[in-house]
């Protein structure tokens, strides 16, 4: 190969990427697997049959081989969460288990997770050739039958039926009364609609069927067995209504629904989960006992053959349904009494933490020979430094560079690690490449030491990428490093290397990473200046491969390093070797600084123990590191954002921006009160930064557009906040320039944003004007203003008094509202009732705050800006109290504006009508008064009242009227005269104020009118009754005899009596 310049070299075939990087350990061919396997050195034994001092994997392999050689039973559990390397270890043990000595005698069965379903697993067992077709036909048919059952369409229904049967036949399942009552659960599971609901896509039976046929799929918790969940039984109303078959089924569905049924649903789900294994076993005609029998038969068969059995199972959950039977098989020894005819069994089984905790019975746990725990902790420990990352990466990169043939030849020759082929060995660019990207030394210190290049990565980039794995989507494990970092980058971007497109700009980086950023955002300009078209790629290079700066330092060998990278690194990717920002203060050794020791960008990971022994200087370093961690987080976030990414910590930026905006702008020069500024910028919710990840809930907010200037401003503000006085003055100066520049560009629109109620109302009246006029008119409504004012100052003082009083207490307002119906016209009274006391109170408070000249932070002590207030009132008076259009288009979300606008709108619509109403009321009341008075004087009226009362008293007649001293001709005369003045005016301040004051006279007149009305009614009543009485009297007196007739009769009687004497005399 002709040696050319080390530039844009792709030293691997594209197809090798997918061949080498395979997620499933079992799916990788043996040669690649062994070539890429990184030995585990720190196995953690949770339980061990015999103490193993060496914690390396080789030692454990030897222990397994010893067991085999000594015909000892061994049941090994490799436990750990998904991704910790269980499969890898088990695969490695399987690949290395067979030796020349035992390979004839051992029957090895490896059950991989690649086809991780019960169906796939059964197929693996059937095809593994461990069952002799001739002698073990029955067992094979049993397995075959189960596999067939799993593929049948009716599997879901069969599972449901078996669940139903399990509920009644499984003695370990204790059903509560509410499920057994009237066979509720049985009928429930028989009901067609219920079954459909449980079988629907995503439903519990569907999940179970898919798990049995296809496995759990992918994901962090891929190994979890599907379970019934309480939500599965919370049927929608429509579904419950469609349950028409069994009444009991419908009743149970109703009982299970809603919040009230949650507890019952949880109970039911738990009960059915207990029945799942029974159902699977019976649905497939392969129960745990059947499975145990099949393997027992196998062991007996092998025993007869003089052979032993070794089982390597990546993940036991693939055997869900028969797993309990399998566990029984695994713990059954061949040397116990009665088990003489069984072969020796060595098994290594992968089990997740949750499976071990919840599914492995205690009696089984006690019989485990070795339990090895691979936790995320000890897995990440394996990748805890850049050396470990480089170790792992170098093996895969080497395998990728080699051909499959070369690897297989090595594997066939014993796969000795010492003989591992090295693609770099004969590479013509090895020197340049290793100088620019580094290498990892395999078998260091031994005779077989060899250097494997890290190209196209370097140690820094491996570490940076590993640290930037997005932990919300992945965990930091070997698997995520291999597949989310190495495989992703090589597969997505590697092929673009030759096209001068690797590495891409950060915006094109993609993948599941957190954002990357420059440590010194201002250096972006330098990169732009020096890198031109390649700015984006250079930023990626220095951010991921370098130290996140373009600081140019001289290395000890005299060469220049930019961002800790030699110029060869730039050139290898077809990038210009930029000069960077030279600093004479620093020199640096060339090569690859461990990023995790870099104070600026990496955390110091001090444990509690070590922290306790830190010196003061160390503490300062730790604190500084913590600040730097924070700054790095922000820098990364901002750098990603300015490149078009999203802004994650927007809340923090908004917070410092709000403070900055509030303090930087001279609001008083814009005639904006601190109150208004405070309302808008009290929190950060009215600021929206373009590209922020969260939503802004405010209806009207100010959007800060994405720009390099804003980037610097936010960067600067954050640094100021975090570093305080510790910020470098030179840097601070730079930031101040950006602050000023950005504010100069945006001040006008920010001021408008604060000043205006919403985006659409550019011509809105100033808030202070609306509020002052609102309060003035409210004072007028309440009757707190005089009938006339000589000067505006006097009016302003009355207004302020009203505001102060009403802000403190709205009792007077509420009293006036209550009395308004009797004191005022309907329009006036209606207008008063429109306003809520709380709004009035707040508005008065707003008015005082808006006119308040800030005196420190206190809002209690007010120094009223009389000039503004008086000016507003002057203009209002000059305009003859015309209420102008506020110029507000649409709605506003700001409380002060909402209050002011709603009240102002009401005044604009109804105030004129209210004033006119008062005038109309005055006119009406005077007319009514005239009706009673007619051409007489008020004095005549009161005399007439007096006369009437006296006449009634004399005639001993009742009069339903009480004379009151408060009513008098003189009082009425004054009030009526005042009201007459109100009628003389038609507009202007005098008209409004007199009308507003007319209520007092109106009240007086109204009361007199009422007084007269009562008197009139009483008098009329007397008159009516008198008229009737008189008519009767006239009728009665006409019929009475006259006195004369009586007197005549007297004479006659007297004469007759006197005539008796004469009779007597005669007698």
């Amino acid at each position, binding site marked *: 190969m002709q040696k050319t310049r080390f530039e844009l070299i792709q030293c691997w075939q594209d197809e090798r990427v997918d061949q080498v990087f395979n997620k499933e350990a079992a799916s990788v061919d043996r040669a690649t697997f062994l070539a890429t396997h990184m030995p585990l050195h720190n196995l953690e034994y949770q339980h061990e049959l015999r103490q193993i001092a060496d914690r390396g994997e080789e030692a454990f392999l030897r222990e397994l081989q010893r067991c085999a050689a000594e015909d000892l039973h061994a049941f090994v559990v490799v436990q750990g969460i998904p991704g910790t390397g269980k499969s890898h270890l088990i695969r490695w043990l399987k690949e290395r288990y067979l030796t020349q000595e035992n390979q004839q005698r051992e029957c090895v069965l490896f059950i991989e997770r690649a086809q991780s379903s019960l169906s796939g697993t059964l197929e693996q067992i059937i095809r593994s050739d461990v069952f002799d077709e001739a002698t073990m036909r029955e067992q094979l048919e049993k397995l075959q039958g189960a596999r067939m059952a799993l593929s049948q369409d009716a599997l879901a229904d069969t599972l449901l039926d078996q669940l139903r049967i399990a509920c009644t036949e499984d003695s370990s399942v204790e059903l509560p009364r509410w499920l057994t009552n009237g066979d509720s659960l049985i009928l429930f599971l028989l009901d067609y609609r219920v079954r459909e609901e449980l079988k629907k896509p995503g439903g519990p039976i569907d999940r179970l069927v898919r798990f049995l046929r296809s496995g759990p799929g992918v994901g962090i918790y891929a190994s979890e067995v599907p379970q019934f969940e309480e939500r599965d039984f919370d049927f929608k109303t429509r579904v419950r209504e469609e349950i028409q078959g069994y009444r009991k089924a419908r009743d149970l569905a109703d009982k299970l629904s809603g919040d009230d049924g949650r507890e019952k649903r949880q109970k039911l789900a738990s009960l059915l989960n207990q029945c799942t294994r029974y159902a699977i076993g019976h649905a497939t005609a392969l129960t745990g006992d059947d499975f145990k029998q099949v393997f027992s038969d196998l062991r007996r068969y092998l025993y007869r053959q003089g052979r032993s059995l070794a089982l390597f199972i990546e993940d036991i959950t693939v055997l869900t349904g028969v797993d309990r039977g399998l566990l029984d098989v695994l713990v059954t020894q061949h040397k116990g009494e009665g088990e003489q005819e069984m072969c020796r069994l060595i098994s290594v089984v992968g089990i997740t933490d949750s499976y071990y905790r919840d599914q492995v019975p205690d009696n089984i746990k006690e019989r485990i020979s070795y339990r090895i725990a691979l936790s995320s902790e000890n897995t990440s420990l394996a990748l805890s430094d850049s050396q470990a990352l480089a170790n792992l990466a170098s093996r895969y990169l080497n395998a990728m560079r080699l051909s499959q043939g070369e690897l297989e030849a090595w594997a066939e020759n014993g796969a000795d690690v010492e003989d591992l082929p090295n693609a770099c060995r004969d590479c013509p660019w090895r020197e340049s490449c290793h100088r620019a990207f580094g290498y990892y030394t395999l078998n260091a210190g031994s005779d077989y030491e060899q250097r494997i290049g890290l190209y196209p990565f370097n140690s820094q980039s491996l570490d940076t990428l590993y640290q930037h794995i997005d932990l919300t989507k992945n965990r930091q494990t070997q698997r995520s490093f291999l597949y989310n970092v190495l495989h992703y980058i090589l597969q997505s971007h590697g092929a673009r290397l030759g096209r001068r497109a690797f590495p891409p700009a950060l915006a094109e980086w993609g993948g599941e990473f957190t954002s990357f950023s420059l440590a010194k955002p201002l250096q972006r300009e330098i990169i732009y200046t020096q890198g031109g078209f390649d700015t984006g790629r250079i930023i990626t290079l220095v951010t991921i491969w370098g130290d996140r700066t373009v600081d140019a330092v001289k290395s000890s060998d005299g060469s220049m390093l930019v961002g800790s990278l030699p110029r060869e690194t730039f050139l290898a990717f077809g990038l210009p070797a930029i000069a960077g920002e030279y600093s004479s203060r620093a020199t640096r050794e060339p090569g690859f600084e461990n990023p995790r020791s870099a104070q600026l960008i990496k955390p110091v990971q001090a444990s509690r123990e070590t922290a306790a022994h830190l010196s003061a200087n160390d503490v300062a370093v730790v604190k500084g590191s913590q600040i730097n961690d924070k700054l790095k987080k922000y820098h990364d976030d901002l750098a990603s954002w300015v490149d078009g990414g999203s802004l994650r910590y927007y809340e923090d930026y908004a917070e410092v921006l709000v403070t900055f905006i509030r303090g930087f702008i001279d609001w008083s020069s814009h005639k904006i009160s601190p109150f208004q500024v405070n309302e808008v910028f009290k929190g950060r919710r009215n600021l929206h930064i373009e590209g922020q990840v969260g939503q802004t809930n405010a209806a009207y907010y100010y959007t800060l557009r994405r720009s390099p200037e804003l980037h610097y401003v936010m960067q600067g503000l954050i640094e100021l906040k975090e570093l305080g006085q510790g910020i470098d003055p030179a840097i601070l100066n730079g930031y101040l320039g950006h602050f000023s520049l950005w504010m100069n560009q945006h001040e006008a629109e920010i001021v408008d944003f604060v000043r205006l109620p919403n985006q659409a109302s550019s011509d809105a009246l100033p808030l202070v004007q609306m509020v002052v006029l609102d309060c003035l008119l409210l004072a007028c409504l309440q009757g707190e203003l005089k009938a006339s004012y000589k000067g505006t100052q006097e009016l302003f003082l009355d207004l302020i008094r009203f505001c102060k009083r009403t802000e403190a207490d709205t009792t007077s307002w509420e009293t006036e509202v209550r009395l308004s119906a009797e004191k005022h016209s309907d329009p006036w009274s209606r207008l008063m009732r429109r306003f809520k006391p709380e709004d009035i109170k707040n508005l008065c408070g707003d008015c005082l705050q808006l006119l308040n000249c800030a005196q420190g932070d206190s809002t209690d002590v007010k120094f009223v800006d009389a000039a503004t207030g008086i000016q507003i009132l002057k203009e209002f008076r000059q305009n003859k109290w015309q209420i102008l259009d506020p110029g507000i288009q649409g709605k506003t979300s700001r409380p002060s504006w909402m209050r002011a606008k709603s009240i102002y709108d009401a005044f604009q619509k109804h105030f004129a009508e209210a004033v006119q109403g008062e005038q109309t009321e005055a006119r009406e009341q005077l007319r009514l008064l005239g009706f009673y008075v007619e051409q007489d004087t008020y004095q005549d009226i009161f005399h007439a009242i007096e006369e009437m009362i006296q006449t009634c008293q004399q005639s001993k007649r009742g009069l339903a009227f009480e004379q009151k001293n408060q009513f008098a001709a003189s009082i009425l005369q004054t009030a009526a005269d005042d009201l007459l003045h109100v009628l003389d005016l038609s507009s202007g301040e005098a008209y409004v104020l007199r009308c507003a004051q007319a209520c007092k006279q109106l009240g007086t007149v109204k009361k007199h009118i009422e007084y007269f009305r009562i008197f009139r009614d009483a008098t009329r009543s007397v008159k009516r009754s*008198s008229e009737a009485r008189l008519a009767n009297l006239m009728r009665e007196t006409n019929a009475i005899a006259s006195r004369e007739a009586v007197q005549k009769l007297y004479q006659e009687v007297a004469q007759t009596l006197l005539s008796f004497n004469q009779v007597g005399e005669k007698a």
Partner: protein
Amino acid sequence: MIVSLVRETCELIREIDEREKAKNDAESVEETLGALTALSEKVIQLQTSIQLLAGRLPSSDIKSAIFIGERCASQVSRSAEQFVIQPRQKIELQATQSQIQKALDSLQTAWQSYAAECMREPFDLYRLVCSLPEVAAHKAAYDDLQRQLLTAKNTLPSSARQLQDFDRAIEQFKQLLREIEGLSEAVKAFLLKTLGGTAFLADVTDEVLQWCRQGQRAQTFSIQFAR
């Protein structure tokens, strides 16, 4: 409105007051008239009785009635004088009327005594002879007269005709008794004892026996042992 209303109402009230006063007076006059009319009737009744009975009743009774009349005359004169001042004289006049009534009651008592005396003898004789066949044959006439007389006795005569009717009835009754033959004193004594169940054969004198054997009379007598 109010002034004119008050004016009209007050005038109305005053007129009512006046009319009510007049009405009260008129009612008093009316009541006085009623009492006076009733008194007048009684007075005339008393006057008539005095005139009719002055010759038949004892003079003391007549004088007493006249005295009462004189006293009442002065009471009426006094009331007539009071009437001018106080038209309500009902009570006074009723008191006067009560006195007149007493006088009438006294006259009636006296009349009843007079009438009873007039009827005593004929009625006793009729009781002795009523069983005789010739008397029994006229019983209806006797009864009718007896009834007329008893009615007249109980009613104070208010006219001369009533008095004349009384006298005529007494006379007719007596005439019928006179028409019975042979009714001597000895016969009357024998009839009296027979009615009392105390007549003995010794009392049957020839005159008596003869009277008894006249006509069909013998069949009306029977003989019994004395007990």
